[in-house]
């Protein structure tokens, strides 16, 4: 039970820190809405067109928000030396890391889920489609967080890593993007989307079980420089 306690402490610590800087919760939210806003501005206001591309836009925005939010998942820990302490701690690293990623997801993705219906309405999607959009995001964003964390763990020791991170991680995000936006698209034309949802769920299971090991290994590597 000590391990569970340590897990919860880490989770609580990270959520506390995030709530203390309230912008850590509001900012991904604002970024998400700003990016969705950019498209109508860039593409033009035709409602028909916007409705067609809405699933794509929502998912691309979610993906970019996840990417940007991921960047400070381990960075401050690396810089202030707490990452060294984490790696050297007798607590199991992959578990501690899972707690950190979970906290990160709670703080950066959940608010985004709450905002999605509003944005979807502004693009003229109907209620059942919005439900599917939410479901795909609910299944997909944790995958983004875990996969993103691997990238961050690999690059955290580099000074200017924002872009490199994007390069490492975006290709891995693509399957999530494709199934996610495709599900919404399909739902919008009134067809069933079980297939896509199962696939997303499978990805989630895979990410939750395997990613922590990769993250832990990457962090050990990053710290040893």
């Amino acid at each position: 039970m000590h391990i569970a306690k340590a897990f919860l402490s880490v989770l609580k610590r990270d959520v506390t820190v995030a709530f203390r800087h309230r912008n850590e919760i509001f900012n991904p939210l604002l970024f998400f809405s700003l990016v969705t806003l950019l498209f109508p501005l860039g593409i033009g206001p035709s409602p028909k067109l916007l409705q067609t591309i809405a699933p794509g836009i929502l998912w691309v925005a979610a993906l970019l928000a996840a990417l940007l939010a991921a960047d400070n998942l381990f960075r401050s820990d690396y810089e202030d030396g707490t990452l060294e302490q984490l790696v050297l701690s007798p607590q199991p690293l992959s578990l501690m890391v899972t707690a950190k990623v979970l906290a990160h997801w709670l703080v950066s993705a959940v608010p985004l889920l709450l905002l999605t219906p509003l944005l979807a309405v502004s693009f003229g999607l109907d209620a059942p489609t919005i439900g599917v959009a939410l479901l795909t995001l609910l299944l997909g964003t944790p995958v983004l967080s875990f996969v993103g964390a691997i990238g961050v763990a690999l690059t955290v020791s580099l000074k200017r890593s924002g872009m490199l991170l994007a390069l490492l991680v975006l290709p891995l995000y693509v399957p999530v993007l494709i199934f996610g936006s495709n599900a919404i698209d399909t739902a919008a034309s009134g067809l069933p989307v079980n297939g896509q949802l199962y696939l997303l769920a499978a990805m989630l299971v895979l990410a939750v079980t395997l990613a922590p090991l990769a993250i832990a290994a990457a962090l050990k590597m990053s710290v040893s420089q």
Partner: protein
Amino acid sequence: MRLDVVGLHCTRGYRSLFSELAFTLEAGQLLLVEGHNGSGKTTLLKTLAGLREPDAGQVLWEQQQPIVWLGHSNGIKDDLTALENLQMMQVMAGADSLLRRDAKSCISTLERMGLAGNGHRFPRHFSAGMKRRLALCRLLLSSACLWILDEPQAALDKAGIQLFEALLAEHLAQGGSAIMTSHHHVGLQGSHIQRLLLAA
């Protein structure tokens, strides 16, 4: 509880910093690593702590046995209050400490380190020396036998250095052991102090 180092060899880039390094550290002993700037002290300490892998040789230390590590950076979070930082240190120190984890012991630790009244402040508002004092609190919060400290006295004022030396002496007296580097004069004396001069 002893640390054995055999045939240790470390390189940085293509440069070999030291090789065939061997020593033994017993309970109650202190190893002072000395050497000029860039001689490889930090590299050695990181290797001993397990943060780096040696190019050859071995560091033999009982598996799973926790250590206390303090590097050039403090390992404290600017966004948690001093007290919350101490609580995290306890969690990280391992299972034992979770049992006797309580706010009171944290407060008395802060007092001992000369940070009384700063428990609810954030370390980002601390001066350089106050941050180092907070980092040194982990010496008091962990029950680990082995301390590995890289210039622990950096940024400390005279009272702070005395405080640290008292802690160290106490730890050694209780059978703990420690490895440290320092450009400061270290006030401790006795046969339990070994010196290791790195001269690249």
